[in-house]
């Protein structure tokens, strides 16, 4: 392969070079941008659960409380028993399970949403520790303490060190947490140690009236799973918890993102591959027209002593150089497009059952949503796939065209008119 000849052909036929590079670049940019867009939406769908370090939230529908007095469970958070929790923990693909107990406390002078959590858990609301604005977060094995949501604390004029009453039992506020920083899922007014929440719920008459809530049960599970197995784990958890299971995962959030996402998710690959196909066809057209124009040059190559393999190498190198340049320009274009996409925001609706407030209370009927910038980024994996496909396509075009060119009969093209 002659580099001077290669460079001369690329730089001294600027229209052909530009057309070929832009053809490949547009296909690559379309392919990579669509994948970035789809991945951005997929990441956005993960956001509500990712904010609390989980991939799946599992709960179960149950009976509506008989009376809204004292501690009651929202009807979307019926008990999940210990053996069920352990069975979930043993499922293939499950990496960690965070347990919580969510309840409402209806008192004569106040209404509270309380979440019992394990501060040492790596998944689930334990991650709220990163959202502490004042004081400290709950410590492991601690009892009788609470962390208050800052908005709730402001409304109630609560400060660190104050005492609050939950179902008549005193809890010391040890810290304030800005729940909004940690997302919209499983928000509460007060966060207490899981053991306290279990004990209070276990003894609550209006819980016992409709539920068999045992001392080591939970009613919300936050599951961290292997990314490749999330769908399987979701299905298995739903199956384990029975017909009343409410299992939220990335996929369930994806389904709330609307038609545009579904189209991109379903047809993104297809459209992207079609774009690459069109690019390959355009490259083929440009190069075949170019080689047809250059058939006399190819005849000269044969006449002055180039072997067929020399010609194939030379022409294939040209094509591959054009394809590589096209991929480079296409990837740069995709980065720009992805940056523009990432400036747009996407709103992910959060199902009511994941942060239940009674609909009869102020704000209870308000729909919740997580709004984030679309995390559209060009992934190295997609870039490599685009590079591989473009090189494969151009190699196929190169072998076909260069093979044709090498078979040109010099005597036919070199005869003078």
């Amino acid at each position, binding site marked *: 392969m002659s580099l001077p*000849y290669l460079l001369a052909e690329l730089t001294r036929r600027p229209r052909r070079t530009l057309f070929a590079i832009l053809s490949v670049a547009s296909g690559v940019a379309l392919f990579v941008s669509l994948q970035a867009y789809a991945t951005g939406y997929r990441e956005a769908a993960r956001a509500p659960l990712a904010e609390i370090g989980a991939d799946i939230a599992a709960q179960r529908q149950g009976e509506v409380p008989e009376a809204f007095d004292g501690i009651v469970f929202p009807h979307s958070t019926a008990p999940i028993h210990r053996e069920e929790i352990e069975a979930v923990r043993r499922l293939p693909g499950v990496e960690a399970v965070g347990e919580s107990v969510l309840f409402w406390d209806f008192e004569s002078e106040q209404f509270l949403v309380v979440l019992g959590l394990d501060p040492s858990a790596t998944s689930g609301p334990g991650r709220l520790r990163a959202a502490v604005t004042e004081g400290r977060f709950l410590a492991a094995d601690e009892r009788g303490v609470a962390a208050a949501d800052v908005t709730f604390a402001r409304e109630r004029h609560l400060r660190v060190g104050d005492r609050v009453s939950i179902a008549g039992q005193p809890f010391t506020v040890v810290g304030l947490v800005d729940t909004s920083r940690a997302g919209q899922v499983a928000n509460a007014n007060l966060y207490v140690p899981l053991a306290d929440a279990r004990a209070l719920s276990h003894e609550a008459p209006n819980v016992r009236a409709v539920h068999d809530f045992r001392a080591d049960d939970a009613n919300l599970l936050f599951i961290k799973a292997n990314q490749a197995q999330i769908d399987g784990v979701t299905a298995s958890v739903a199956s384990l918890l029975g017909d009343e299971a409410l299992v939220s995962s990335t996929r369930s959030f994806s389904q709330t993102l609307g038609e545009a996402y579904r189209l991109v998710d379903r047809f993104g690959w297809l459209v992207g591959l079609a774009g690459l196909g069109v690019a390959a066809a355009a490259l083929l057209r440009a190069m075949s027209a170019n080689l047809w124009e250059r058939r006399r040059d190819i005849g000269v*190559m*044969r006449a002055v*002593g180039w072997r067929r393999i020399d010609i194939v190498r030379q022409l294939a190198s040209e094509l591959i150089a054009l394809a590589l340049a096209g991929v480079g320009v296409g990837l740069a274009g995709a980065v720009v497009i992805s940056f523009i996409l990432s400036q747009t925001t996407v709103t992910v609706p959060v199902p009511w059952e994941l942060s239940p407030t009674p609909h009869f209370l102020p704000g209870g009927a308000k729909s919740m949503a997580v709004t984030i910038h679309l995390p559209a980024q060009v992934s190295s994996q997609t870039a490599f796939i685009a590079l591989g496909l473009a090189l494969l396509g151009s190699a196929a075009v190169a072998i076909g065209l260069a093979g044709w060119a090498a078979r040109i*009969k010099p005597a036919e093209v*070199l005869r003078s008119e």
Partner: protein
Amino acid sequence: MNDLLQTDHLGKEYGSVRAVSDVSMSVAAGEFVAIMGRSGSGKTTLLHLLTGLESATSGRILFQGQDISQLDEDRLALWRREHVGLVFQSFHLIPTLSAVENAAFPLYPTTIPPGERGQRALARLEQVGLVHRADHRPGQLSGGEQQRVAIARALVNHPHLILADEPTGNLDSQTGAEIMNLFRKLNREEGVAVIIVTHDPDIAAVADRLIEMKDGSIVNHDSQAHGMLAQI
């Protein structure tokens, strides 16, 4: 005389058309031969057979005693690279390459280092009086200059034989005379054998020997060329 090239009952047919028929001829090393004939007489086809650009349907071609008609296309290409320089009526330069790059073009697929290729090409351009136009592309050169570049390209591999197909056909008479002067000079100074195909008797007159063709056959082997270059 020491034969460089010899043909033995060479023939070429295109279907029922006999383009070259039963041609037996020889060219000695350092000889300057003109093949002359009217349009359609088969002289260009004969030249293509001699260069291996077309394969004969009968007969054989011996170069320095080796039967080149038995070689496959790639071996023929290598044989041309090693022994033969070709010059065409339409010059056939690569339009994207400069004069020096065109002159070096046969050496591109070789293992000769790029610097040495350039030096050899420049030396040949100097020999044809065009070193001052080395960086110009064919589109920036006159017809005569382009043909000089083509001759430099034909010489760059130090050939034993130059085959030229109507090398002055696209040039005015003055430039044509200069090109023929150049061929004559190369033939005398370098000892390279030259076979020129032409339909122009004045051009043919420059040669040591004239071979006349008619209807694909040689009708006169040994016409002594008697015109002088100065008279062209």
